[in-house]
């Protein structure tokens, strides 16, 4: 299939031209799937989220005002779909306690060679709420205020969840490093 420019795709999709709608799906599914995968533990859920997000994108593309990049706009829809996918309540009620804070720090060498797939695997070990907040803050760059609005939680909850997410990640990395050293 011929590769179209984002402008062509936007214009075609605004006209609800099926050819351009399909082009959008073909050209951007991989990118959007990567976003979706970061927010879900399993591939099945990420596929569901991606499909729902694409429907939403194609239906609401007439509202796209071309402020910011098209990719960023689509990513935001994927993220919002993922958040909806998991009940907001889970962020309020999900309480994870960290038994013990890891004493040892993680050396940069423990992750510097990690590829995206491995990093995704590590992040996916986090509980849903931690993972979501970590992704939103550390990867997407949203502020705690924005995260709070998106998830329906307070800023302080967002902060504390992020702290816990980071601690959990540290623990996971240390464990992974220990296993690696043993091997």
């Amino acid at each position, binding site marked *: 299939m011929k590769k179209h420019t984002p402008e062509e795709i936007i214009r075609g999709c605004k006209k609800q031209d099926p050819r351009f709608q399909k082009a959008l799906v073909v050209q951007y599914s991989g990118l959007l799937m990567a976003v979706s995968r970061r927010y879900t533990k399993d591939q099945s859920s990420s596929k569901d989220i991606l499909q729902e997000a694409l429907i939403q994108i194609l239906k609401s593309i007439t509202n796209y005002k071309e402020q910011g990049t098209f990719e960023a706009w689509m990513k935001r829809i994927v993220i919002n779909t993922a958040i909806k996918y998991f009940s907001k309540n889970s962020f309020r009620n999900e309480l994870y306690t960290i038994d013990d804070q890891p004493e040892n720090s993680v050396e940069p060498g423990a992750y510097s060679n990690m590829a995206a797939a491995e990093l995704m695997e590590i992040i996916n070990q986090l509980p849903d709420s931690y993972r979501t907040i970590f992704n939103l803050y550390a990867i997407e760059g949203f502020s705690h205020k924005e995260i709070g609005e998106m998830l329906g939680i307070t800023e302080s909850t967002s902060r504390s969840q992020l702290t816990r997410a980071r601690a959990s990640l*540290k623990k996971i990395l240390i464990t992974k490093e220990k296993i690696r050293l043993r091997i």
Partner: protein
Amino acid sequence: MNTEFEKHAREQFDGLEVPVDTDALWANVYPHVKEEKGNRRVIVFFLLGLLLGLTAFSLFNFNQGNTISSNQPIESTNPITSTPVESTANTTQTDLNNQTATLSIGATTNTASNTTEVTENDFTKVKTTTNASDIKNTTATTTSTAVRTVARSTASSTSVQTNISKQDQIMIKKDIDTKTFIENNQAAPSLNQNEVVSQKKTTPNLSTNKSLTNSLLIDALNENISNQDDAFSIPESQQKNALDTYVNNLNRLKKATKKLRVGLGLYGGVSKSTNELSSNGDIGIPEYTAGRNASEKQLETVHLGFEVSVYTKNHLYLRSGAEYTRIASLYSSNSSLTSTDSVWDVTEIIINTATGKIDSIEGYVQTTTITEFTKKHYNYINLIDIPVIVGYQFEYEPWSVGIEGGIYANISTKYTGEISNTASDAFYDLEVDENKWFKTNIGIQPYIGLNAAYNLSDNFQVHFSPGFRFETLFSTKENPVKEKHASLGIRAGVRYIFD
């Protein structure tokens, strides 16, 4: 660690793509983004239009009807005069063609005259089977006057009771049994001088004035009575003519006062349409619309329809039915065809300057022929609409003229032909409409016009309706090019109005 790890993760995730089975994904997504058919919207628009038309029609009627209490029984207290006579006399206040007519007709063997001066407050209600209207004069004279006798016809034809209460209230009740009247007169058409009862010459007292001269009944009676002045008997032919005129006028009056009349008709028409293209501002679209505006020409627009109309005695009418409209346009595109061919010819000439020998090398030589031509595309927009038109007409027998306005609710739109495509160099087939740019999305179109009708007979009429109709927004909101049509034309047809 946090910052370093997160930075590394951001770098790794930036632009990351995960392989997806896009065909399967598209198969799941497409059914959800396919456009819904616009039929539901059209039906809603149609029902709204119909409701609007009917509401307007009802309101008009209701307002008019409030001034008339034609079917309400009228109670009168203590009637002091109730004079059933062999003869009849009646008094009618009627609003015919917007003129108030006061009419006294009748016959008696005796001369009898009751004149009662009444004031506005004295009028309570007027009941008449033919018509009744507001009584606006501050004073009025109700006259019951003996005029003359046509013996066979009078007794059963009309009877009038004039009751005046002690409180100076007046009830005028009139009950004209037109049918009986006609039957009686038709049964005895040959009145001769002997049969006509000679009588004491009585000055006819028809309460007419200048404003009443258009009254049909008065015309007939005046003619009748003027002939009577010369002799107390009326010649047979005049009697018959007067009677015929009277019967005809009564029939017309009956029609004019009938509450509702229904008509059916067929019509056709032709209009001149304009087409206004505008761009939604997307890149390249303004240039595209400019190109189409320059090369597209609107041709004739034709209309065919059948109508069902309902007429009220208040000169209002509601017209509906179905109308087919075809808007034609011509789109001309200039194209060029480049054909390349090869012919066996000299491809190279070699001149040996030393020896002067000339050699030639032959081979296939490519020739290019460019043919330019203009292709004409005849495009048609086929519409089926349901008009809901409300009108008001003034009657000047045998003509009636009026104004009308309403809506056309579109129920079907079909395009045929092709236009150049905004998305590619190829032509866009309007009938296939791959991108759904031209699905039905018209809704309601306003219409305003005039109406003139000529009565060929009591029931048949031909009519002409010059009108202006806006056919707006044929294309969908997704279409980058908006089309607005407007047509000015005339419709003409025949109509049968049932009694």
